[in-house]
Each structure stands twice: as structure tokens, then as C-alpha cells.
């Protein structure tokens, strides 16, 4: 434990959301909504008209903002930008894939669980070679 250093950030950070309207509405009711002076919000509502580019831009923006600690993204939306989500490997902000009304959570697509599967599959390959 000698290496463990606590770094209190002393920051109240935000929770960002990229999800459908009902999910965003619910979390706004829970007090998560933030609008800055430039009218930038910490959420993107995804509907049938939302383009993949808009989702990608929102994901990149939320993952680079320093005031955001957690990014909630509906798993079906994450599937649209799977390459971006899977290649994200920072500890903060944490990317959490959540279910949506019409798309239940599927562990097979979760990026964290995929990373574990990849590690074990590469381990079993390397142990087989030994």
C-alpha cells in the first residue's frame, strides 16, 4: 500500500448522458442536468433523427471535458459508435453503458466485459503455447 496516494480532487463533477428522451428526462428529474453560460448541456438526446456524427461529437466532447466524471450512454447508442467506445481506455470519465427502454442490457456488447474477455482469450492462447 506504500504506493497508494489519495489525490482529493475537491471537485464536484458532472454526469453526462447520451441517451433516449425518457432516460434523459428521468435523470434530469434526479438533478443531473447542467447548462453553462454558453447554453452547452451535459446531455444529448438521441432519437431517430440524431446522426452518428452528432453522437460521435457528443461522445468526444464529454470524454474530453474536465468537469465530467461519468458518461452514461445507452448501450444501443454505444453500438452505433462501438469503435470509439471500445477504443476509449481512460479511467476518468467513466463510460457506463446502460440499458434503454427498448434495448435491454446485453453483457456481450459491454466494452468493459469485452476487454476482460479479450484478456482471458489472449491468456488462454499464450498459456496454450507454453
Amino acid at each position, binding site marked *: 500500500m506504500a504506493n497508494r496516494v489519495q489525490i482529493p480532487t475537491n471537485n464536484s463533477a458532472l454526469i453526462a448522458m447520451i441517451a433516449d428522451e425518457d432516460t434523459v428526462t428521468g435523470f434530469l428529474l434526479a*438533478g443531473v442536468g447542467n447548462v453553462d453560460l454558453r447554453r452547452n*448541456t451535459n446531455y444529448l438526446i438521441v432519437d431517430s433523427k440524431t446522426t452518428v456524427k452528432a453522437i460521435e461529437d457528443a461522445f468526444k466532447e464529454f470524454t474530453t471535458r474536465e468537469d465530467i*466524471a461519468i458518461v452514461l450512454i445507452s448501450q444501443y447508442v454505444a453500438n452505433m459508435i462501438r469503435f470509439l467506445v471500445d477504443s476509449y481506455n481512460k*479511467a476518468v470519465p467513466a463510460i*457506463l453503458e446502460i440499458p434503454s427502454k427498448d434495448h435491454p442490457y446485453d453483457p456481450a456488447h459491454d466494452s468493459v466485459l469485452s*476487454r*476482460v474477455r479479450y484478456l482471458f482469450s489472449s491468456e488462454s492462447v499464450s498459456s496454450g503455447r507454453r
Partner: protein
Amino acid sequence: MGTTAAAETEGRGEAVGEEDGAILQLLDSLDGYISLMGSLSSSLRQGWLELSSARHSMGNSRISSTLFDMKPHSSATTVDLTVSTGESPSHDADQAMQPHFSLLKWGSRGDEKSPSVEVDGKTPSQASSCSGRTSCGLLLLKTDDSDEGGISATIYPAVAADNQVRKKRSKALSMFGALVPPKLRVAQGSFETSLEAIIEIANTRSTILSALGRLQTVDLRS
């Protein structure tokens, strides 16, 4: 020659032990992660159902994204973030960080189930057995400077704190009107519960990533 071989064997043994520890931690965290996702799905489903009921009673146009408050305002519910460096060095600096998230629901800690004492200049063990921040009151114990060692207690009813939380809750609801159906309030509660699960999931995720980082480090060394 013999000592070199012994040292090598010892080193290998340590690496195996470290790997086993990391694997156990990883498997435990994975189990927790999947259970928490199940809880989250359940509370979200509840919330969506209640939201749909509220929309049914108020009308579709009364609960929609067009009514969201777009005036500049800061979030009432935020996340407190503490970052610790990992136990073992990792080849990736980001993997070495293990963040810990805590929810500040409506500006206060949501995980304060049992009260805790705030004592001026005294450790909690030296203070009264009663603990501090409760829903009924905030108890501050101060010791006198005199040798008599008398303790004066000042009680600040946290009715004021509860009122603040109530006001913030009402403000969040008010974007859909002054009078909202009970189902919308219940939906608000369900999504607050979901937030608690989300914070736990975030912490479990950081444990998983930390364990993965340790495993990769052990793998590289061997």
C-alpha cells in the same frame, strides 16, 4: 548458482501469487458489476414505467424535452471524485489511476445512512457516542478551553438541510409545471435510486480496470 535459482523460484512464486490475487479481484468485481447492472435495469424500468404513467395522466406535450430548462444552471446532483494511484506500477499511467466516485445527491452525500459526528478538535472516538449528521439534526460537540473540560453541544436542526433538498427536488419537477402528478415524483425517486446504482457500477468498473492493469503488468513481467 543455487541462490540464483532459489531467487528466481521465489520471484516466480510471487508473480503467481500476485496474478492469483488480481484474478480473484477481477472475478469478484465482474460478479458485482453484472449484479449491479441487473439492479440498475430494474430501477430504470421502474422509472420509465412511472414516467409513462405520469405522461399518460398529464398528456404527452406536458412531459417532453421541449420543456427542459435551457437557462444556465448548475447541476444539483454531482459526483465527488477521488483518485488514487494503483498499488503496482503499470505501463499505462491511466491504468495506474483508480478513481473513486461518490454521489452528492442534491448537494449532499447520498451514502450517509448512518450519522457521523463532527467534533471540533476531537476525534470521533473521543466524542459522544451519538453520531452527527442525521436527518433529525447536525450535532456539533465543542470542548471548552477551560480545564474543566466541559462540553457544550450545539444542535442545528437539519430541517434547513432537508428544506434545501426538498426545494431542489421541487425545482427539478417544476420544469413540467407547478402541479405534477404523484407518479412523476415517484419516477424522480426511481431515477435517484438508479443514480446510486450507477455510482456503484462506476466504482466497480474502476476496480475491474485496475485489476486488468495489474494482470497485464504481471503478464508483461513474466
